[in-house]
């Protein structure tokens, strides 16, 4: 038996990082590319430069927040209102980071490394991390996650830039199909991850509120208010359904 313990303090990060990069370079990178390619089209449609669209993916790294931001600007919503809406829509990242942290903070890592890893947390990286990391040796988890997560982030950022140019170069119908990837992806994603009553109710109620809002207020009603109303009705409905016999 070779003595492994003496090597463990200087375990190379190359090999696990490479394994993470390889694992991400397939379906995960492809899925994120499809989810963000339409964001580039949204950014272009509101008159933003390509770099701003791509930067939104690398920095915000939250598809729903980007949809809220660009979709809200397109709908004429005031920026402070959008900032508050995005603030609330991104709350989910806190429990996501908290649940991932114990997996990568072994052996204990400096805060800046954890903050870098936390920035990569969005639905794809988080779900894959929670699934893959427990099966890895502890000291390999952080480099594996960073390799995996950075590939997914890079793929999403490149796809956003690509979508920006494609939207102008494609024939009208294909440009429409490209813009359609965003609502289609998030509709499928919301339904696919819905498990409990609290996940389903807002999905059913929100489109109804939006349709009623459009019928009642025309294009003047605020989409953010519609979402908050829908979520609140859903919450009340959930309490009511759970207390009913």
């Amino acid at each position: 038996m070779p003595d492994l313990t003496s090597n463990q303090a200087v375990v190379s990060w190359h090999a696990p990082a490479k394994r993470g990069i390889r694992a991400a370079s397939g379906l995960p990178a492809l899925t994120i590319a499809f989810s963000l390619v339409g964001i580039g089209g949204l950014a272009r449609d509101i008159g933003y430069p390509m770099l701003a669209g791509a930067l939104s993916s690398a920095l915000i790294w939250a598809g729903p927040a980007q949809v809220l931001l660009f979709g809200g600007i397109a709908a004429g919503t005031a920026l402070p209102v959008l900032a508050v809406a995005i603030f609330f829509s991104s709350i989910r990242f806190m429990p996501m980071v908290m649940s991932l942290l114990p997996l990568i903070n072994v052996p204990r890592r400096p805060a800046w490394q954890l903050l870098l890893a936390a920035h990569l947390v969005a639905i794809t990286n988080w779900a894959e991390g929670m699934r893959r990391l427990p099966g890895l040796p502890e000291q390999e988890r952080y480099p594996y996650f960073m390799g995996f997560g950075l590939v997914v982030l890079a793929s999403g950022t490149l796809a956003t830039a690509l979508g920006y140019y494609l939207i102008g170069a494609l024939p009208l119908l294909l440009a429409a199909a490209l813009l359609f990837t965003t609502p289609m992806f998030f509709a499928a994603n919301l339904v696919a991850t819905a498990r409990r009553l609290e996940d389903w109710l807002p999905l059913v109620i929100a489109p109804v509120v939006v349709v009623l809002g459009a019928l009642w207020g025309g294009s003047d009603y605020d989409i953010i208010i519609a979402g908050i109303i829908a979520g609140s009705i859903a919450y009340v409905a959930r309490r009511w359904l759970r207390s009913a016999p």
Partner: protein
Amino acid sequence: MILDALWPYAVIVLCGFLPTEVWRVLGVLLGRGFDEQSEAVIFVRMVATGLVAAVVAKLLLSPIGALGVVPVGVRVGAVVCGIAIMLGARRSILAGLLAGEIVLVAAAWMVGRGGA
């Protein structure tokens, strides 16, 4: 104007990056000890889901740009088909996305031909 050129970046950092990143940083700082099943957390999560679902519905019903040339019935029908395929394909989001796209393009093409 240089300020006009920098405006989109300022919007992305101030209205998008900071409001999102603050929760990731808090997640690192607070570590564990957070009840995911408390009523306040459930309420916030439901409102967040409602917000995203409302924006998705808005993007479908009154889209910006080229998607507007596709009739609303085709857009909604394609999303419903995509979701049905996704559920049928063991909740594969990629399968649902591709199916929805195919339905959208095929139906819009046929409608366009019939109308022209």
